[in-house]
């Protein structure tokens, strides 16, 4: 390690996207270095052991979006990656009932019938619509977003591809698509379903990680973003990475090292070094510097350019656009070690849906009110949460008979309001505990004796996630997935194709198209761009090419 080490390419940040870019570049024969501020790799796709004997996926916690083309190109299963689908889910109610989302189609129909006969078929129609939208959008995930203001042949080509796909939908479906992409998940569900509980169960996917309410236009797309993944081709299915989400990063890391790459952990980037408008390397916080003609940042766009790049290298418009790019912290998380599986008085023992995602939200209005709290800088008094006990399926996460539970909470503000002052500094042990208590109170709807089972709980607020992982405001998508920040607008109009105003510098994280979720598409797309720019486009493996 030293001042003068030179590489072909440097990746700043060992999140799953940075690792993905690095793997592709290394496999194409480049000499690649990854620098990572933490002592571990993975960014938000990480497994941490914070309580003896337990493994927490303490940021991202389920897997579906990871593109199979990438898994295949990089042979991740050979490096230990296994994604196991999980079975259904449930929403519990205070009166001791539940709505169970069975993976068995017949059981799901019967369960819907039990709650609302008219919703049984409605669900089929809902699924059809969503799957059609997923099928429409998927081909765009591993492609560049066209720049509509450009006349370059490639952009026109991408634009043409989009128009052709849109044309292929036919008038009716195109109209439905335009609506779907712009409407709220609440309105969409109200069009399809009658039952509040069923609507609430489905609506969660429209707000997870998002600073919008269920009735905010654009949240139907957010739901799509969560549904467009798959486990082995089963669209919308979710799974666990065996060994926690860190298994993804670890597999990528192993792939990278096998391809000859180097990872340096423990010190983050202090400055991206620029000379004459060209990138020349990075200077780390510990004083080390590394040189390379290509530097790719896995950090979000704000952190990359507002914190670690000298403004003088950037056009004023660009900096302004980066400043107004919205990255809002809206989610918190509890990672819990349990001494045994808690009782679910409502559900028969061993019910398959207990192994899936569990919630305690009753209605769309309840979810919308949760958003109202957040707008004012408070955590939701009556929060939405997505709660799983993956140790029921994955034996590697907790000692036998004991369990690991992950609770993703929407909404929690980044800049908490206390006495009229909104600031991340307001998150302290006291407010953190009050936040967790609020969540536990609601978990008791499903598991009344949950508190008795808790051996250890890690409480994570947006503030903590920013501090540890580096995500601005702790936003899990590196930028809101609103339609003004998607496709050619992501992250900055005119710079939606992984390039930046600085020659040789790229953006490879979820701030770039197609956005967040452990999808690895931005990383792979960026690698394709980089290789193409250095005349090695043919070295991109075929699945993601």
């Amino acid at each position, binding site marked *: 390690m030293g001042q003068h080490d030179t590489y072909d390419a440097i990746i700043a940040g060992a999140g799953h996207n940075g690792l993905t870019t690095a793997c592709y570049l290394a496999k194409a024969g480049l000499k690649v270095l990854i620098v990572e501020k933490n002592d571990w790799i993975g960014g938000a796709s990480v497994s941490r052991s914070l309580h003896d004997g337990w493994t927490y996926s303490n940021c991202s916690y389920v897997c579906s979006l990871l593109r199979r083309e990438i898994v295949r190109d990089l042979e991740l299963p050979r490096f230990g990656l296994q994604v196991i689908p999980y079975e259904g889910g449930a929403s519990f109610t205070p009166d001791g009932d539940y709505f169970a989302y069975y993976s068995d189609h017949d059981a799901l129909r019967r369960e819907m019938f039990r709650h609302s006969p008219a919703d049984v078929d409605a669900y089929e129609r809902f699924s059809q619509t969503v799957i059609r939208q997923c099928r429409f959008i998927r081909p765009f995930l591993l492609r560049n977003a066209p720049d*509509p*203001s*450009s006349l370059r042949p490639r952009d026109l080509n991408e634009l043409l591809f989009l128009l052709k796909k*849109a*044309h292929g939908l*036919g*008038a*009716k479906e*195109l*109209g*439905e698509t*335009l*609506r779907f992409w*712009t*409407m709220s998940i609440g*309105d969409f569900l*109200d*069009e399809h379903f009658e039952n509040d509980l069923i609507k609430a169960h489905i609506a969660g996917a429209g707000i997870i990680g998002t600073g*919008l309410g269920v*009735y*905010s*236009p*654009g949240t139907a797309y957010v739901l799509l973003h969560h549904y467009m993944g798959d486990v082995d081709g089963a669209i919308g299915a979710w799974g666990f990475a065996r060994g926690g989400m860190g298994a993804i990063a670890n597999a990528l890391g192993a792939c990278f090292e096998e391809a000859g790459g180097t990872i340096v952990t423990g010190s983050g980037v202090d400055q991206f070094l620029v000379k004459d408008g060209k990138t020349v390397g990075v200077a780390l916080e510990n004083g080390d510097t590394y040189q390379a003609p290509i530097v790719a940042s896995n950090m979000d766009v704000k952190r990359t350019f507002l914190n670690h790049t000298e403004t003088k290298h950037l056009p004023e*418009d660009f900096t302004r656009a980066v*400043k*107004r790019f*919205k990255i809002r912290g809206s989610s918190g998380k509890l990672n819990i070690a349990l001494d045994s599986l808690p009782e679910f008085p409502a559900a028969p023992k061993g019910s398959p849906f207990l192994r899936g995602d569990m919630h305690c939200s009753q209605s769309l*209005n309840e979810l*919308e*009110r949760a958003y*109202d709290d957040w*707008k004012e800088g408070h955590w939701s008094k009556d929060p939405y949460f997505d709660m799983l006990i993956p140790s029921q399926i994955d034996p590697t996460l907790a000692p036998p008979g004991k369990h690991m539970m992950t609770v993703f909470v929407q909404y929690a503000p980044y800049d908490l309001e206390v006495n009229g002052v909104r600031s991340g500094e307001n998150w302290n042990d006291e407010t953190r505990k009050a936040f967790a208590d609020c969540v536990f109170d609601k978990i008791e709807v499903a598991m009344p004796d949950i508190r008795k089972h808790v051996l250890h709980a890690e409480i994570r607020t947006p503030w903590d996630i920013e501090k540890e992982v580096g995500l601005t405001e702790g936003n899990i998508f590196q930028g809101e997935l*609103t*339609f*003004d920040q998607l496709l*050619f*607008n992501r992250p900055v*109009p*005119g710079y939606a194709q992984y390039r930046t105003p600085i020659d040789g510098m790229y953006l490879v994280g979820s701030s770039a198209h197609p956005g967040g979720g452990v999808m690895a598409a931005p990383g792979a797309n960026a690698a394709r761009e980089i290789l193409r720019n250095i005349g090695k486009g043919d070295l991109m493996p075929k699945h993601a090419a």
Partner: protein
Amino acid sequence: MSVSATYDVVVIGGGHNGLTAAATLAKKGKSVCVIEKAEAFGGMAREVAHLLYNLHPKVARELGLGALNEGKPLSTISLAEDGNHVEISGDTVRFADGAAHPDAAAYAEMIRRLKKFAGVLGQLSTKTPPKLDGGLTSLATLGELAGLAKMGLDLKRLGKKDMNEFLRVILTNAYDLVLDEMPDGPLAGALCADAVRGNFVGPRSPGTVFNLMYRLGQGGDVRLPKGGMIAVARAFEDAARKAGVDLRAGQGVTRVLIENDTVNGVELEDGTVINTRAVLSSAAPKATMEMAGIEHFDVEAARRMRHMRCKGSVAKLTLTLKDAPSIKGLSWDQMKSRFLIAPSAAAVERSFNPVKYNELPTAPVIEAVIPTLSDVEVASDGRHILSANIQHVPHTPEGGWDDAKRRHVINTVVAQLETHMPGLAALVESPDLLTPADIEARTGAPGGHWHHAEMGVDQILTVRPVNGMAHYRFAIGGLYLCGAAAHPGGDVTGLPGRNSALQLLKDGVLS
């Protein structure tokens, strides 16, 4: 059933759009009859609107309504809690006492940009929305696409920077757009209030910048026409009459008569039948469907119309005052302005919260004007009228409207006004509240919604009023929509009526 008359076209509903459609057709030599259920013509322009904006110059010119767009536009005063009210006239902003406003430049720049974008977008408003199924073999579609292509070219002509900005802001929300440029306060609040006006949204809702642009489409000037909105209604009525339209008020259409999947007449409440080759309906889509008979519509179309978003959330409060109120720090002339109570963008968003749950407003956004100060004709015996639009009032609160709830809304609004107009409560003689439910009952506007259908990005252009029905043609041969639910939408623009009439002529139904 007696057949009383035969026309080329019958127009259902004598609001400004119905009258515009009728006048447009009559000017082309068609025999046209307008059937209005109420005793007077003018619809919502008469009953609900209290200011005129967005009247399209093409419509004004074609109908000879130019006078309505003349005169000095009203300035807007956004009332501030600390008394530093902000006066907005066109694109200039200053404090009401004449002092410079620190965000005046940012405001002017933002309005300049939005107006420019609105101009590009505005091209689409005078045309039938393009069909996107790209039947490139069809000449009609090619023509429509040409309009879109023209817009595309104009966009390119904006330059790369503005085009990028256009594509970003068109779908964004007013709250962020405004607060990216200026600190929160009465000016930001005023912009956000105008971005949500008439719609069921708060400024944080994506798509609200589109509303703001729509409002700025004809320059954004707000006018208080001489004689009030009744005079505006009358001007439309006179234009139609002058063009040779037969106007029948006091009796509504109960049925649209159909034979062979084509309209051939309408039946009135008393059973009278009027024969016609085409019917243009300015009633809401669902109501029109019911007049024609649901069995004539595909199930999917009916479902879409059922689910059309049209939750009205604006109430109108008319206060008759014993005397003119005053606001500290404002001149007599400034009292003629349009007032906004929208102290901040955050307050406008908060105003939206209760209505989402059908709850009564606690601190609603208010737009108020005292027309009697500008127009002596409408004042009588020293009394004055204060007219207020209250944004974010539920159509029907939990348990329905009753006197107590109405009083609650009135008191809330009067108390809010009172903080700026001390002594107002004592001046109030008779408060008259029109809730969205009342507006629906009086005008037939679904949900009491100003625009018949929410102007959300999921309900505009090719999906307005609903997917598959954006061409004014309404499933059955010779049946057309011509009201605010059709493209381009609400406000007293006259465009839905005009465009629909032109589409009918183009389709050759009458030839």
